[in-house]
């Protein structure tokens, strides 16, 4: 089962829910995997403190021109939709940072003058986390992608992370905030999406956008309201109107905020929170099984 945790914006508690949902499943005897696709700001590792046992780089194939073969026909410049390659007078200029690695120029060159060479844009680390006491198990599986600083394109890193996700009975994917291409690339093949929000006008506004995105992808979504009891009733009314289920409400709590800010897994230290997560896990499981039937 793949559950993606998303939110219209960051800071709503998305990572908190993702980390603890992965942790509670492990505690309940599942083989749980936590996957961080928020590659611009991956934070899950702060809480899960994984022991990393494998690392790989993510690369993008960019064109390299063989000057001997090139006759400056200009075809490569014409096919590139990203202005990453331009033919000026008799030279071909390549701008690797702009290249999306589509292979268009490589296929289009009539002289076979283009080869592709990998360029690093980020990396993936995988390992296991032993933050949760669960005897006889080998720890929570952990994978995260990291976009290199000063790289603009997150999607190739996300795609590479997704390819590494193992088949497991419980996979929690921490999605990037927002509703843009990165978020879509992350949640598109999830079995279920949990949208984490706050009961405030900002939270509602961003929830509406995120919900529409997920609905357009034809994935079932439920809502988790974080810091319940602080703002107004807008989120509740919206969910009722749209027929979206609110699967959990996490009360505003100074204790939770403190455990979070220390960088610890919250279910280990707060029983009330742990039971909310356990309940949430059961509900999500049921919804996915109902879907699949």
């Amino acid at each position, binding site marked *: 089962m793949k559950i993606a945790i998303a939110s219209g914006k960051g800071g709503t508690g998305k990572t908190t829910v993702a980390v603890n949902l992965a942790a509670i499943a492990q505690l309940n005897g599942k083989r749980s995997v936590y996957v961080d696709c928020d590659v611009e700001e991956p934070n899950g590792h702060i809480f899960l403190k994984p022991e990393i046992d494998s690392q790989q780089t993510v690369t993008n194939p960019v064109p390299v021109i063989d000057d001997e073969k090139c006759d400056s026909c200009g075809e490569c*410049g014409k096919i590139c939709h*990203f*202005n*990453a390659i*331009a033919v*000026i*007078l008799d*030279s071909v*200029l390549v*701008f690797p*940072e*702009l290249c999306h690695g589509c292979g268009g120029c490589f296929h289009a060159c009539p002289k076979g003058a283009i080869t592709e060479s990998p360029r690093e844009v980020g990396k993936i680390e995988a390992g296991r986390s032993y933050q949760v006491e669960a005897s006889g198990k080998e720890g929570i599986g952990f994978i995260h992608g990291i976009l290199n600083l000063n790289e603009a394109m997150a999607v190739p890193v996300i795609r590479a992370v997704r390819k590494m996700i193992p088949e497991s009975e419980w996979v929690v994917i921490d999605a990037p905030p927002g509703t843009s291409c990165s978020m879509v690339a992350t949640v598109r093949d999830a079995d279920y999406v949990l949208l984490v929000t706050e009961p405030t006008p900002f939270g509602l506004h961003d929830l509406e956008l995120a919900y529409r995105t997920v609905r357009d992808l034809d994935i079932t979504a439920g809502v988790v309201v974080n810091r319940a009891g602080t703002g107004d009733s807008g989120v509740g009314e919206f969910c009722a109107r749209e027929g979206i289920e609110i699967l959990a409400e996490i009360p505003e709590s100074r204790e939770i905020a403190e455990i979070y800010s220390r960088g610890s897994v919250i279910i280990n230290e707060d029983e009330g929170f742990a039971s909310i997560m356990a309940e949430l896990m059961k509900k999500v499981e049921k919804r996915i099984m109902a879907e699949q039937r």
Partner: protein
Amino acid sequence: MKIAITAVGPSEEDEMDQRFGRTKYFMIYDTEAGEYQSLSNSSAAAESQGAGIRTGELLSNNGVGALITGHVGPKAFSTLIAAKIKVFSGGKGKVSEIVSRYLAGELKETKGPDVNSHWT
């Protein structure tokens, strides 16, 4: 030789545009004929990325030998070097005034990019 000046409008009485890749117009001054012509850059300026590269290409295709503008980013600069177009920093003012200053030899040639990429 043809000289291109980034311009906020299609006339030599318009101000020079400080931007290169995102300029809407160029005024092209032909030193032999002593005449101006306007050239639209709207399609390159609308590119999501690499506007400066496309703009450099446009100037190259129009046989321009020198460019006067405000700021040029690194990618655009490489394109201009490949196109053998010299770059001059124009300061501020109307296109016609800046061209007079250029003809009087008062403008300085720019030898490298002077802003980061993505300068809007």
